[in-house]
């Protein structure tokens, strides 16, 4: 393990079932509770940590060597969007890794991962057998847990999924990016990853980012051509307002594109049902097959809930299916302009294979 000269503080991660893994602290000195989830991606910790979908969760990275390339700067593009992150701050509650590299090397790096975590007040722990921990989560399903740092007051376990997490991470007020773009897309922010916005503005769209519960069908002033429903944390059923608004938009047959949580919201709005996966899909190597073409795409994913395809009403078909476990990876309406995917076509982190879906959506928008 990387040996820093300063004395290391011990820390541990405690699971709901009583399992304890001991390591050392390299983040903020405080203890936190959360839902413990693992991600098997090998790159992209700055992107993952700032992904709002990790709100309420303690993130375990299965790739053991973390911190190698430090953390990039927080400069923004011309739309005011941070260039290097998926939101303005670290969203995960805590980070668990095997081997933290205190020394980093990359031309874009401005600070170490440890310093960043400390600045953002997020605890982190290294020296953990993350494989053993992951196997436990795989076998027993995701569990509640907590990071407890030596000398910091202990905390109680808390289930984040009973909170409306989307509401906690979504934008507070309507924000417009690339005003005057060719097409106007209303983006319902349930915890959107910024690359969804970038993917749309880079295609010449004007993006109107609205809070998760914004009643856009009722906003007569709002002029738009299509709707994007973002990713976000937690149980989709907590987003009752979003579901209601999307259902209303569906009645009007407005073109819409759901991503991740957005996929689940479209399903719920259409009258289908969702369920919690045992340990979710959090990785950058999920193969998704398009039943229409037989083609398989490698996708990046971060979700704990999934759509139960059997509950979907007539008219809906599966856009993608997970090649490994057969779970739903996307929906499409046979006659209406609705599509959604369970994975992340905007990538960051992960493969960009599915980036073309933004073009498909925009073709639908016309």
């Amino acid at each position, binding site marked *: 393990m990387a040996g820093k000269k300063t004395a290391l503080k011990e820390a541990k991660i405690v699971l709901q079932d009583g399992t304890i893994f001991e390591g050392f602290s390299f983040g903020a000195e405080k203890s936190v509770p959360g839902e413990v989830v693992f991600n098997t991606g090998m790159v*992209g910790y700055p992107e993952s940590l700032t992904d709002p979908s990790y709100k309420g969760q303690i993130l375990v990275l299965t*790739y053991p060597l973390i911190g190698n390339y430090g953390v990039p700067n927080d400069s923004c593009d011309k739309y005011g969007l941070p260039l290097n992150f998926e939101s303005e701050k670290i969203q995960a509650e805590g980070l668990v890794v095997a081997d933290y590299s205190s020394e980093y090397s990359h031309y874009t790096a401005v600070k170490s991962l440890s310093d960043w975590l400390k600045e953002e007040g997020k605890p982190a722990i290294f020296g953990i057998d993350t494989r053993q921990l992951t196997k436990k989560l795989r076998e027993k399903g995701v569990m509640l847990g907590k990071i407890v740092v030596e000398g910091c007051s202990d905390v109680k376990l808390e289930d984040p999924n009973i909170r409306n997490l989307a509401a906690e991470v979504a934008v507070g007020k309507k924000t417009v990016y690339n005003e005057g773009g060719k097409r106007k897309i209303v983006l319902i922010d349930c915890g959107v990853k910024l690359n969804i916005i970038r993917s749309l503005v880079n295609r010449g769209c004007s993006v109107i980012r609205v809070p998760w519960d914004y009643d856009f069908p009722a906003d007569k002033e709002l002029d738009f051509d299509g709707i994007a429903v973002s990713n976000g944390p937690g149980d989709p059923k907590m987003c009752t307002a979003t579901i209601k608004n999307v259902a209303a938009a569906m009645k009007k047959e407005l073109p819409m594109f759901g991503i991740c949580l957005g996929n689940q919201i479209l399903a719920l709005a259409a009258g289908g049902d969702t369920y919690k996966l045992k340990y979710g899909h959090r990785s950058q190597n999920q193969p998704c097959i398009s039943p229409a073409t037989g083609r398989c795409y490698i996708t990046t994913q971060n979700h704990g809930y999934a759509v139960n395809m059997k509950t979907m009403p007539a008219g809906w078909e599966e856009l993608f299916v997970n090649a490994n476990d057969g779970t739903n990876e996307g929906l499409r309406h046979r006659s209406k302009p609705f599509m959604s995917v369970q994975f992340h076509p905007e990538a960051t982190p992960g493969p960009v294979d599915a980036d073309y879906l933004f073009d498909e959506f925009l073709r639908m928008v016309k």
Partner: protein
Amino acid sequence: MVNPNIATCQTDKQFADKIYFLPVTPYFVEKIIAKERPDGILLGFGGQTALNCGIALHDSGVLQRYNVKVLGTQIDAIKATEDRELFVKAVETAGLKTPRSFAVTNANDALKAAEKIKYPVMIRSAYALGGLGSGVCRDAKELSDMARQALASAPQILVEEYLEHWKEIEYEVVRDASDNCITVCNMENFDPMGIHTGESIVVAPSQTLTNHDYHKLREIAIRLIRHLGIIGECNIQYALDPNSDEYRIIEVNARLSRSSALASKATGYPLAFVAAKLALGYSLTEIKNSVTQTTTACFEPALDYIVVKIPRWDLKKFRNVSRKVGSSMKSVGEAMAIGRTFEEAIQKAMRMLDIGAYGLVGNSDNKANPKSRRGSRGISGMQSYDLDDELANPTDERIFAIVDAIKEGYSIKQLHDLTGIDEWFLYKIINVVEIEKELAEAATKELTPGLLKKAKQNGFADRQIAKITCAKANDIRALRKKHGIAPVVKQIDTLAAEYPAKTNYLYLTYNGNGDDITFSSSHKKIIVLGSGVYRIGSSVEFDWCCVNAVFTLRQLGYEAIMINYNPETVSTDYDVCDKLYFDEISSETVADIYEKESPEGAIVSMGGQIPNNITLKLNEFGVRILGTTPGSIDQAEDRQKFSQLLDKLGIDQPQWEELTSIEEAKEFAAKAGYPVLVRPSYVLSGAAMSIAFADDDLEQYLAKASKVNEEYPVVISKFIMNSKEVEIDAVAACGKIIIEAITEHVENAGVHSGDATMVFPPKKLYVETTRKISEIAAKIAEALSITGPFNMQFLAKENEVKVIECNLRASRSFPFVSKVSKKNFAEIATKAILGLEKANGRPTDAANGVSCVGVKSPQFSFTRLKGADPIISVEMASTGEVACLGSTTYDAFLKAIMAAGFKLPEKNILLSVGGDDAKIKFLPYAKKLSELGYSLFATHHTAMFFEKNGIKATMLHKVSEDKKPNILDYLDGRNEEKLHLVVNIPTAFTKKELEDEYVIRRKAADYGIPLITNLQLARLLAEAIAAVKPEELEVKAWDEY
């Protein structure tokens, strides 16, 4: 299957229906096609040789004529990757970037191109394997020299932008006919651009790439591979600017490569298997992930460990060779280590190289003070060196120089500026050096459990810690056990534990707190120790033995547990055995695994010298050694003990003595008479073995020998001139031989057995000689109570037989004799070890009933080893071998040398035969060559001798003489007709081969002219080409013999 590499598993019956041990050349493959009329041909599995052959067959219309379909990537796409101009065009069309580059066909144009690009520039030759003929040129002189040389073996070369110190990154890409395309693995070179990836330390996955870098290059890879239309597997190499977002695509290999073998082992994703399926038209989604057996093969493995590969060089074996590593490949093998920290993996890999290193640090003799100057160079043999130069212009030992520089207080920046190695890697090495310091401090106080654990987590071996802390390795082991510090077993599962794995592809780590597997089994378990890293002297042959042992064990219902760490082997395919531990073959690691698994015992006699060397230690650790006892193995390995045994049994041996001082050695030599042979015990492939002709030779050699192996004494023996060398491979049970095979060497004694041309069944041995050899082998087998495989080497002269050595393990020639005789020695040996096969009366002579002759020829790599003297001697120099079968020795011999890359002479032959005796002996053969219509050329003395004896030969002046006609002109073939064969028989065995002769040999190698330096071999060649015309060479499958 067409492959003359007889020692491979792929040329085993269970792997192919029909096997041709023939050269992979358009000529022979066309004959095979005409005979077999296959429906399809796979070109992407046999490396560059197969690819080049396939392109030639396509271009000459053979494939079309016989309606043979190329499966997988089509020829057009292959050409677009192989022809640089086409490639650059294709990359540009795809909107991507390659280095600035100009294709030239002569040295002048090369200079012009370099001016446009600006020095330093890089030259590369198209259609070349292992970066042959490529290099960095810093000025016009270097460029003009190198360009001439490269153009001698390639019609076209490229002068390119040299991307010094850019990161070198590779991706392995798989694409199916339905256009599904994935990258299975990426790898990052520790050594930046300028050093061939085969010469670099490589890690998987990349370590210093951000998400942006990683996925940008991944997307480019997929875009380009789609654009090129590759179907199956390929490899793409990039240069990535460490200071910006710039990249260049260096090359695409539209075939499986060394990198894909590494990637397969690094990820558990069976690239060759999948590529074969795709070539047959399957789509990726139709193939299952071999590890989980439930998920799809259309995915990208997620690793939860780090893999480090380090090349193994054997440059010390070559006289005059340049030890610099660069853009041309010189390494002969590689070790791959798996860990959960970089430090753990790289330190394992350093030990796996089997070059005597204990890790990155702790190799110094001055172990108490790791800060001492040149500390880590203990194994290097170099007394002093220029550290800055070593860092900037690396040799095979740069990694040690980095450690030294850190200890000398070089800053990270200095190190990075000199080496171009990413700072992240350097920080990790510093970390190891720091821990060494902590351990050294602990030596004077107390080694705390915390520090011990930290050291183990950072890859320190028990013996390394012992060396640093001035303790004994056994005590460190005991201390570890006392504190419960033990490694855990982790699985490689391709999905980072997301799905359960059905296979047992395993490694050990100290960075974990639980084993992934349980160790109970309903079957009896047996561990087979593998052969470790390939090096000169130990290659694919031992892997064949291990794999056959494993197959035999499994057939007999045992659970076969393999331990090996060589990514190039079949034994490290996780589906070959029941459990694969991809880890060190050291007494420490094997004992750790043994204690977890509690098997019936371990087989140490199949993997060559590495397992053999740790037998005693393993036995001490309580490992039950199956087969011949450790005591007997030691008795055969220890020269002194073995000699006493021979004396006791009344078996003759060359006069010898164990050496304690140079004075004693000289005394011995005076008594026995020169020449004498000097060698250390416990070595394979004749490391530091030499013949001395005078006192000063002796002094020089002894200095070299003692450095290679200090733990064991050095032995000096009388060297017997003009003696034949004969080997026996055998299997015995309880001291009785079951089966034996006697093989003769074409070359007289004085050529290492690994470099010798071997004939089986022997054709030129007296019955009395073979009888004596069998008799001696039987006596030895009984005396050492051998159970399992063994091999002995003999000198035979006028029916006198003397024993040279005896190895109580499988030998390099086991697969050769097994395949020629169709009697599987490895299988029989395994059964003997298990007590299931007994001798039944007299030993079976494997030659009985063999209707053909097998000839095994060495494959040399002198062309790549810049400066090395391409001569064969007691020190092994060949890097591979091939064998062909024929009805006659001549037929098999010609095919075998052609398979090893030898081109039969068209017309011009240079003869340079040293010494009167050799000249007289060669005279009839020269006459024969002359009669056959060859144009003979000769050096001064040889020409005069021939003239006196009525043979016409054109006299050529030596290179050093500035006179025409000069040899140099005929070697480079620019102004004169090029030579097609050089026969240079060195003047006796004198120490200083005349510089002129060296120049002839070296230039022959540089200009790709076939070279023969041995009299017996030259005679056999002359006989063979007189007896068999090339078009008469047999084209028969193995089962037709």
